[in-house]
């Protein structure tokens, strides 16, 4: 099988990312960010900054269109106008000949702030009489709240019936009612956000670290009151995404700076700005109530969650401004009644956004931990509780969907089979094993386009609209086109083209890229066969065929805990994954391993430490991503033979293995120590303190 099409260029350092764009006459922008949480902007003194050698201009909201933008709720200003709402918010921009000169001048921008009481706690923010982060959030375009909602509500979404859930809880033979907490965390892509913009002959040229070039184009057009055809977004490689590279973010500002200065402008943020001022994961408190009968058969699940959405809601794309993972609580199981109630609050902290399977890791940690606590009450093994409740083929799930195929039991068995045998642990340490279960449907909504053209040498040029975020999508495009066209892979040249050369693409994300490529490639192959005398064909698809395919992912973690210090060592993580056909085995396997490594980070390492409205883990020295030394041995077993999405018979892989890991590890720590950690990350200090408490209060076995 031919290697990935981007491998040689990436290994030689030849691949171009947004920040590698160099244009003649290009200058550099640096942001001035708010040092305060919540304040009126009293005024600016730009004199000293403008006097710094090399400075071309210093700009504020007065130089920007009076507009707010966002993916659904349009509440984000291009530069703060009148008020700042979080530490790190953009208040001014300096453009200079060099980045160093711009950084020097940015330090000399004097902003007067008249501080306001900050809103720091999501639950308190939703109480009557709370200080408002936004005066009238219901007036923003796309808002899903009304004047009747608590003033700091970004969204309030419920499912199921509370009264029914409460009644079933009261009638359950066994019940748990526990609250779990998860911190904010950054997506951890290693390419800081970057944008280059230039105005050439009236057309705006953009290079941005954004996975949705067509959305960037359309959002820029809306922000700057231009026609989309006046804007071209150029292809660049994306240096990691995981939900964080679809923001639009600094792009409207960068374009406006290029228009104001008449020069090409590069705006590349430093990583510490990225950590503290982009769109990290929502921090959450989740109260889980679960009830079952005497035999451990689930009767009811109720999840009440409050999520901290930070200062702006504009990074959430869904129509309800919610996070899909919360509404899917309990989806792997047969549960007669599920009720969820999720409120997302505005606070004076960094605005939150999507991260790989939005809210699913948080929800799964909470629900799967609660199920272990319930199993303890029933007196059955945690695995047995899952076995009795996993959905079977033909049964509708909690949303009333009957999957074409449902292989939770098989996936659980595969995980248990692969996890047989003991993992060696240090002498004297406590050992335990935990399980975590997740299922995720494969999205069938695809909107993209593709052009095939004959080349002089007999090869075929395949122009794609979707960026390569690292998942191997362009390699997959080549493979399925070559197969469809019946030609060798090395005769198909896949090229990512600027936005003016193809009709549209929705962007990478939502685990839907391969499904979209499969559909558009099938259409292109057909058009190619019917092309007659033409030497090129362009096809566009826009499908939304609902969902009837799901994938189970069951993880089993083995851990050892040092009873003297609370140190946790994850000895092994086994992942069993329910798959159909696999287009690119190497890339598929990296998606699974990389996901588990990220799940491990969420479980044991990563905490953005947002306290008192401020991100304290402001560098990668404090916000710890898993390294080669951290990632435990990973074993993956594929449950093959699955039935996936036509025409390629595939299932999504990108947002599975990062989800149940924290639950599996938390459950393993509880099995090892008899103490339950209900907040992440699980640190030695937390475990040690819990062990001390257990020793002094219950005379427990540890």
């Amino acid at each position, binding site marked *: 099988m031919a290697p990935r099409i981007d491998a040689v260029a*990436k290994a030689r*350092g030849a691949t171009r990312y947004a920040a590698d764009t160099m244009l003649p006459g290009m200058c550099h922008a640096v942001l001035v960010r708010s040092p305060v949480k919540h304040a009126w902007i009293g005024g600016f003194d730009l004199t000293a900054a403008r006097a710094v050698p090399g400075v071309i201009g210093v700009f504020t909201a007065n130089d920007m269109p009076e507009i707010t933008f966002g993916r659904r709720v349009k509440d984000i200003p291009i530069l703060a106008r009148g008020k700042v709402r979080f530490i790190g918010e953009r208040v001014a921009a300096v453009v200079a000949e060099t980045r160093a000169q711009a950084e020097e001048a940015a330090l000399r921008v004097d902003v007067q702030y008249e501080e306001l009481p900050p809103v720091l706690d999501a639950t308190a923010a939703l109480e009557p009489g709370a200080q408002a982060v936004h005066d009238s959030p219901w007036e923003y375009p796309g808002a899903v709240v009304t004047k009747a909602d608590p003033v700091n509500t970004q969204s309030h979404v419920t499912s199921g019936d509370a009264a029914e859930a409460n009644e079933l809880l009261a009638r359950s033979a066994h019940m748990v009612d526990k609250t779990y907490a998860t911190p904010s965390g950054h997506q951890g892509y*290693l390419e800081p956000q970057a944008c280059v913009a230039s105005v050439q002959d009236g057309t705006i040229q953009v290079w941005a670290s954004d996975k949705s070039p067509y959305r960037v184009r359309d959002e820029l057009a809306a922000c700057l009151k231009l026609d989309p055809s006046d804007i071209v977004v150029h292809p660049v490689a994306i240096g990691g995404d995981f939900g964080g590279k679809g923001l639009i973010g600094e792009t409207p500002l960068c374009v406006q700076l290029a228009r104001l200065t008449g020069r090409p402008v590069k705006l590349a943020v430093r990583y510490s700005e990225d950590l503290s001022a982009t769109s990290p994961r929502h921090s959450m408190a989740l109260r889980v109530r679960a009830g079952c009968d005497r035999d451990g058969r689930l009767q009811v699940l109720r999840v009440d969650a409050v999520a901290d959405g930070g200062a702006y809601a504009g990074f959430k794309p869904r129509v309800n401004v919610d996070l899909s993972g919360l509404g899917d609580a309990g989806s792997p199981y047969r549960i007669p009644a599920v009720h969820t109630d999720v409120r997302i609050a505005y606070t004076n902290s960094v605005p939150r956004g999507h991260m790989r399977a939005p809210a699913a890791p948080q929800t799964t940690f909470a629900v799967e931990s609660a199920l272990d606590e319930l199993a303890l009450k029933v007196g059955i093994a945690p695995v047995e509780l899952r076995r009795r409740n996993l959905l079977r083929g033909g049964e509708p799930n909690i949303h009333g969907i009957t999957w074409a195929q449902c292989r939770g039991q098989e996936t659980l068995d595969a995980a248990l089979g692969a996890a047989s045998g003991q993992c060696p642990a240090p002498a004297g340490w406590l050992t335990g094993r935990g399980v975590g279960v997740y299922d995720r449907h494969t999205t069938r909504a695809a909107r993209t386009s593709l052009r095939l053209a004959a080349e002089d040498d007999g090869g075929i040029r395949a122009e794609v609209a979707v960026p390569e975020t*690292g998942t191997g999508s362009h390699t997959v495009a080549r493979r399925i086109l070559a197969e469809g066209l019946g030609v060798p892979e090395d005769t198909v040249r896949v090229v990512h083209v600027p936005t003016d050369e193809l009709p549209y693409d929705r962007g990478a994300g939502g685990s839907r890229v391969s499904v979209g490529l499969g559909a558009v490639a099938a259409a292109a192959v057909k058009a190619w066969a019917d092309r007659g005398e033409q030497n090129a064909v362009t096809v566009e698809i826009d499908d939304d065929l609902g969902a009837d395919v799901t994938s189970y992912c069951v993880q089993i973690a083995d851990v050892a805990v040092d009873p003297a210090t609370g140190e946790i060592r994850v000895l092994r993580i086994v992942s069993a994954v329910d798959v159909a056909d696999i287009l690119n085995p190497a890339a598929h396997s*990296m998606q*699974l391993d990389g996901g588990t490594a990220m799940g491990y980070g969420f479980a044991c390492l990563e905490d953005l430490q947002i306290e008192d409205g401020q991100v304290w883990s402001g560098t990668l020295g404090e916000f710890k991503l898993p390294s080669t030394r951290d990632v435990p041995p990973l074993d993956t077993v594929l449950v093959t033979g699955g039935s996936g999405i036509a025409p390629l018979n595939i299932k999504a892989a990108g947002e599975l293995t990062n989800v149940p890991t924290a639950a599996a590890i938390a459950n393993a720590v509880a099995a090892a120590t008899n103490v339950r950690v209900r907040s992440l990350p699980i640190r030695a200090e937390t475990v040690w303190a819990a062990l001390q408490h257990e020793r002094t209060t219950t005379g427990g076995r540890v």
Partner: protein
Amino acid sequence: MKLTFHLNGRMIELEAGPTAFLVDVLRSTGLTGTKEGCGMGVCGACTVLVDDRPVSSCLYLAPCVDGADVWTVEGLAERFPQVVDAFVAEEGMQCGICTPGQVAAVCALTLEKPAAAEPEIREYLNGNLCRCTGYQTIVAAAKAALDA
């Protein structure tokens, strides 16, 4: 100040401020293969070799390379083709932003510990973060490079 040093095997002369970082100076010459990630010497994306030792060019002051022998991924790819081949064959990358640093680190590994076994390889690459892959294919690439 004027700096004279070997860059990818060729003598180069350039001007750099006394507080300029090596990553910026290298990138300003058009060698954009070297990436700035964390900007504080933690992630390893900016790794280059100075006198055949791996350094974080985001923290390394440019004046310190005066008279030294500096290799970036572009030159290392020519000097250590077996390392590039190993990363390609093992598909030791996804988004690729950390890859130039990983390649540089593995080149240094082949010089420093040519007989390293897996635990030693993992320890050596501990300073090169990757958010995409989970490291299995990167470690496999390093092994393949040492075996080549």
